């Protein structure tokens, strides 16, 4: 498992700090951090504690999550937006969305099993809707 890219985090903090017009020394002081620690953090040489990250995000006026972009694991912007909309959708729409994903997943699993064991047609689909999309 690759560790988190601390260089990326440092660069992101630095970019946002400069956008706001702060010097590293000023910003470190506002956050209650020593200038040497903060420089090392921006250089990607420190693994910060949670509260340090939170303090810095507050200072930068952004959510902590904005500092933690990670190309290896990030969701696509479209899918992030779906997650955001999900929480504001009606209970019925949420259930429908979850069922659609479940049917999709079950269909893939059934196809995988059929290909593996060559007993296509023997398996009863396990999805909540028995007639998923035609394969």
């Amino acid at each position: 498992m690759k560790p988190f890219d601390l260089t990326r985090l440092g660069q992101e903090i630095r970019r946002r700090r400069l956008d706001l017009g702060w010097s590293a020394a000023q910003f470190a002081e506002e956050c209650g951090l020593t200038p040497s620690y903060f420089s090392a953090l921006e250089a990607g040489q420190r693994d910060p504690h949670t509260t340090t990250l939170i303090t810095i995000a507050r200072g930068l006026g952004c959510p902590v999550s904005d500092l933690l972009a990670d190309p290896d694991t990030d969701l696509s912007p479209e899918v992030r937006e779906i997650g955001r909309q999900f929480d504001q959708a009606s209970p019925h729409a949420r259930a429908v969305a979850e069922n659609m994903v479940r049917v999709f997943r079950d269909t893939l699993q059934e196809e995988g099993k059929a290909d593996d064991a060559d007993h296509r047609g023997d398996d009863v689909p396990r999805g909540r809707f028995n007639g998923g999309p035609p394969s």
Partner: protein
Amino acid sequence: MSNVRRITRKQSETPIEDTDNDTDSTIIAARFREFREARKMSVAELARATRLKPEFIAAIEDGRLEPMLGDMYRLARGLNIPLREIVGSASPRAILLAVELNEAPEELQGAITTILACSQVKK
């Protein structure tokens, strides 16, 4: 920490949809537990997946021990959830759906976007 609040923010730059600007470490600790439970994993299973000690994970979830970023990232990888979503504000249920959709065809993503967009609950 109190003096940080004095920093003038460009409010317009903060995306409206992200309301997790007031996140604190206890909220993040609780989110790790919520996501582990949503994944139906035990602490022991997560410990095996991350090679972290179960007692260490339990202490983080209880807020007795404050993790460093590297630890949080390992836990997030073990849960197969992007770290920025764990520290974010969307519900675990929404994120589990999104993670699964991330690998799904665009057509399915589009269909689900349409269904959700049609039913946005007015607040």
